[in-house]
């Protein structure tokens, strides 16, 4: 089904089971944060893992998704699904322009350009009136789903977030296993060869970029409505650093890696929150360890040990 291998299908069932059981054990708000970041990390992983493009500016799409969803929910009173969708479309719109610019260069230049463009968005958000500057957009209400189903309780919101995450996850899986996804992987392996086979690789990279930024915007919009707040932290490049780290810890280019990475790092941040700046140091140390000794990540290592493609 959906191009899952057997091992992946089992993994998917386990993941869904965990999502259903978890709120009985852990705080729903914590779990919602994990799921939002998991979707964000999956979106990032779509680019680095399957197209080989290292974006360093995904915080811009995530953050703008946050702002737009929060703003429309608060000022226009839109229902939840429309706010989140608008957040996603904002990410995609921005991704269309930035992606079109950034794919003119490859490799590290691509990374630097996406980072610089994201920094531009950050400065824009500091100055633009609608973002509320340093204060951000606060006290965003949680409007009812489809204008009818109340989401005031955290559990109701949790099921919505879980649904959004699963839809996004399956969408990515569908993309990766479509003929389009096969071309993306061909570009990752050998772009010159893909060009010589007649594929317009720039167009493929661009579409993948837009899809990834769309999902990053969705993740941001969802997070803004869960916490009722959108701030400058969401557009800052450190936010991007976190999502890179999640994907790296879980395993770049694996199906479940970003999800596991998001769980591990969000949990770590929760426990380390009282130690202030040590969180940054720990993140840095994990970065270095992963790159030097542990490049396949948790899921990548597990998959290698079991000889499975997870």
């Amino acid at each position: 089904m959906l191009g899952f291998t057997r091992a992946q299908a089992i993994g998917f069932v386990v993941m869904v089971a965990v999502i259903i059981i978890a709120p009985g054990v852990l705080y729903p708000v914590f779990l919602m944060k994990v799921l939002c970041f998991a979707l964000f990390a999956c979106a990032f992983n779509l680019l680095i893992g399957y197209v080989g493009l290292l974006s360093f500016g995904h915080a811009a799409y995530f953050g703008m998704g946050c702002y737009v969803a929060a703003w429309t929910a608060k000022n226009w009173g839109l229902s939840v699904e429309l706010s989140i969708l608008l957040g996603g479309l904002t990410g995609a719109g921005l991704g269309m322009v930035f992606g079109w610019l950034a794919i003119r260069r490859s490799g590290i230049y691509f990374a630097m350009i996406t980072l610089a463009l994201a920094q531009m968005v950050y400065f824009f958000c500091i100055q633009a009136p609608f973002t509320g500057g340093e204060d951000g957009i606060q006290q965003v209400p949680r409007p009812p789903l489809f204008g009818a189903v109340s989401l005031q309780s955290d559990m109701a919101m949790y099921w919505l977030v879980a649904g959004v995450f699963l839809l996004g996850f399956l969408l990515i899986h569908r993309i990766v296993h479509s003929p389009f996804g096969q071309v993306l992987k061909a570009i990752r392996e050998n772009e010159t060869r893909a060009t010589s086979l007649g594929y317009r690789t720039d167009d493929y990279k661009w579409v993948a970029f837009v899809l990834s930024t769309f999902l990053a915007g969705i993740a941001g919009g969802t997070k803004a409505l869960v916490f009722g707040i959108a701030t400058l932290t969401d557009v800052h490049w450190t936010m991007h650093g976190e999502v890179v780290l999640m994907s790296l810890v879980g395993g770049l280019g694996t199906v479940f890696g970003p999800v596991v990475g998001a769980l591990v790092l969000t949990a770590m941040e929760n426990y380390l929150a009282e130690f202030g700046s040590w969180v940054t140091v720990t993140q840095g140390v994990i970065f270095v360890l992963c790159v030097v000794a542990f490049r396949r990540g948790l899921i990548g290592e597990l998959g290698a040990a079991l000889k499975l493609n997870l």
Partner: protein
Amino acid sequence: MIMIFGKPLLLLYGQLTLGLINGAFYALLSLGLAVIFGLLNIINFAHGALFMLGAYVAWALLEYLDIGYWPALVLAPLIVGVFGVVLEKTLIQRLYKLDHLYGLLLTFGCALIIEGLARNEFGSSGMPYAIPEALRGPLDLGFMMLPAYRAWVVVAAAGMCLLTWLVIEKTRLGSTLRAATENAKLVQAFGVNVPRLITLTYGAGAALAAFAGVLAAPIYSVNPGMGSNFIISVFAVVVIGGMGSILGSIITGFGLGILEGLTKVYYPEASATVIFVVMVIVLLARPAGLFGKA
């Protein structure tokens, strides 16, 4: 009062000097990035952190050892240079056979560690670093008064850029370096110890960043975020200039600093973003960068 395009001349001069100073830092930092990239093929994300480290070392030398600005201007780059050598020997060296994106991720991690440790040790708020005695007070240029220290920063940075350019273009060491950038294997076959050359290059790049950091210490307060604020703009500078030529990095750095200063006078809202806008235009017109080879 003399006006230029509806703005007071003195305001224009003031912002131009500020722009020139920022440009001096852009030039020094992008120069270091370009030299490191040329030989190591990695983008050194830790460059901003090394810049910050230079400022902190200068501050610590003064605070704990009572060593003043002038010795620090030599000592801090040396100390940070040695740190760079250690960093290269222990970590970065392991990555040369891998995709160069891993180099970016590794140095990003290093930057987080250095910045986080500085924040833990000294707090987020900045610490002042006094301007050295000899450079206090204004300098009368006839048409404007210029704080002597700012003039010194521009002169020192331009001098250091020139020196680096001379070393790379005109000395035997520089020609070996350029040859190794073109074809490391061939140079090694001629009996040059390329791994050592690479290590020293990284150390030199780190020292350049620290030199800029010491220069910056009296202007900005010494704080953990000072490097990362700069480095992203420097990345844009590097994309605009292209990493092909040393002289190109220097010209682009100074030019963009001045442009930023001018924007502060005529359209302050855009002053933070003007470099990125220029980057977009350059990407559209000349994707390889102004001085880059395609």
